[in-house]
């Protein structure tokens, strides 16, 4: 039996199928590449800021004030002359409002597709665990999608329209990124098209006795899943969520503070049948019309570009 989709349009009566699978394993899922991203320091900083802003009591949205200071230079002022004070410059980012986002699974569908336990009574704990784990993955996918949605609107660009990505373009772009004052950890996100072009270019750089350092790093990282390597101190990851406009695809290099997220935690009330409160998301068992139980994975999430100077778009041919 092929690893088909876990879905059916049949009812529970169809659960007694003539030939059942001997065992069930989780199918390979390209979305797991998202998991590699969320633990990167840049993403962790974003979530730390998110959490640090608190529960948004009494407000629908939040903005961040960007305070410009430390940019001035002292000027000559004669003794006995008053110094003209420079006002602080505070710019508020756009106010973002977390939106309710949800993903559902029906128990009847679960029974038909996964079966184990259903015909013997209650759902077993590991089946609840599967729903909770799926909640974490759905939240991760949603968060990453929400972040990459802004890449096409980053003002600073690396690469040119309808042209392949190259190491030279990345190198020039990273220097520009540093030139704007960015320091510390940086996160690079590209898709497989960009990664192939970049790696082909890197290997073309060659080396006298051994590979050029960036090529060596790329080769060493070949088995590291979505992680491609650390080039010029930017951690590059492969990702499948990136947008394109038919001509260009939009990746990015992000430093901490480029993207802002805000979750609104909405705890489940006492009467709800809570399966899990994952903090960023909840899982609730709902008894709906037609005597069907559904697991609802729910989160409240918003995101925006907080500061353009802290990020660079990677624009390259699809």
């Amino acid at each position, binding site marked *: 039996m092929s690893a088909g989709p876990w879905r059916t349009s049949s009812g529970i009566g169809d659960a007694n199928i003539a030939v059942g699978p001997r065992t069930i394993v989780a199918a390979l899922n390209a979305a797991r590449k998202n998991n590699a991203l969320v633990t990167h320091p840049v993403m962790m900083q974003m979530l730390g800021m998110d959490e640090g802003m608190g529960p948004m009591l009494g407000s629908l949205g939040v903005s961040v004030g960007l305070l410009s200071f430390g940019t001035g230079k002292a000027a000559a002022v004669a003794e006995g002359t008053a110094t003209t004070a420079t006002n602080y410059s505070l710019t508020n980012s756009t106010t973002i409002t977390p939106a309710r986002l949800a993903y559902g699974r029906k128990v009847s569908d679960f029974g038909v597709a996964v079966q184990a336990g259903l015909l013997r009574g209650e759902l077993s704990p590991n089946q609840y665990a599967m729903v909770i784990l799926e909640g974490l993955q759905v939240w991760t996918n949603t968060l990453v999608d929400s972040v990459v949605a802004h890449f096409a609107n980053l003002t600073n660009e690396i690469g040119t329209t*309808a042209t392949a990505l190259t190491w030279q373009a990345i190198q020039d772009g990273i220097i520009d990124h540093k030139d704007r004052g960015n320091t510390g950890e940086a996160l690079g996100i590209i898709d497989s098209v960009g990664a192939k072009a970049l790696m082909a270019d890197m290997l073309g750089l060659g080396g006298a006795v051994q590979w050029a350092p960036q090529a060596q790093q790329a080769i060493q990282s070949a088995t590291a899943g979505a992680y491609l390597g650390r080039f010029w101190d930017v951690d590059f990851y492969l990702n499948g969520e990136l947008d394109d406009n*038919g001509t260009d695809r939009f990746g990015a290099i992000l430093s901490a503070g480029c993207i802002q997220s805000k979750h609104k935690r909405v705890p489940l009330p006492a009467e709800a049948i809570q399966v899990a409160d994952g903090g960023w998301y909840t899982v609730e068992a709902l008894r709906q019309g037609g005597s069907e139980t559904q697991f609802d994975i729910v989160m409240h999430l918003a995101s925006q570009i907080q500061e353009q100077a802290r990020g660079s778009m990677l624009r390259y041919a699809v």
Partner: protein
Amino acid sequence: MATRAQSAPQPAASPAASVPSLAGGLSGPSLGSRPLVLRPGRGPFTWMVSPAKLGCHHGQIVPLLATAWHAPGLSGNRRGDLGRGYQSQLEMEGYVAIPHNWGADSLAFGAPRTGAADSTYLQRWAGVTIHGAPAVQWTHAWKRPQQLGHRVDWMTDDAGRIAFMRRALIELANDGRELSELQIRIAVEPLQRRIVSESIHDSGHARKVVRQCALHLPREHHTHEITAILKRLDIVLPDPE
């Protein structure tokens, strides 16, 4: 029959509406054809054009459009505001929204967008996800799916899209004025710099990229230095169309 090609289905038409019940459709097993397999994205969006975000494509100066998603939660959007929050943020950066009823006489795949259901530049596609659940995908109007079995390829009408984008740049962002010297510089200088930068490498990939950039850069902006680089790298460009 299950793997026959579906070439460019007509937009916005429901495949289930006009075929026998066992011959197709989105809600059940199909004996006659496969429903269009889609990758649902973030939903509709509004294109934004800026007089200062420019690039070059196939020898023409084009605006590099921003995408104001309508999805709630993204950059100032609230539920039901049709992306107004995201648009406001981009307007602060100098972008102008392209209205969804603007440019209806523009051509996409050779046909005008007059009477398009949702937008003159957006297209709504209905089908199923790879897991079989009903799905809707929004694209711009110059992108169209072609399905062969489970495989979906997206065709693009680049010439039509670029004509629409250039018209939006002149009429909406430039108030009808032709491009200024500064705008031309903004568009061509990054490409000129990249050709010089890439040309220091002696690899096949670098030559490929130099050639791509040189094809995008309008010929009147090929400087003496660029002409010399193309000659040194033995890159011959086709005559401009």
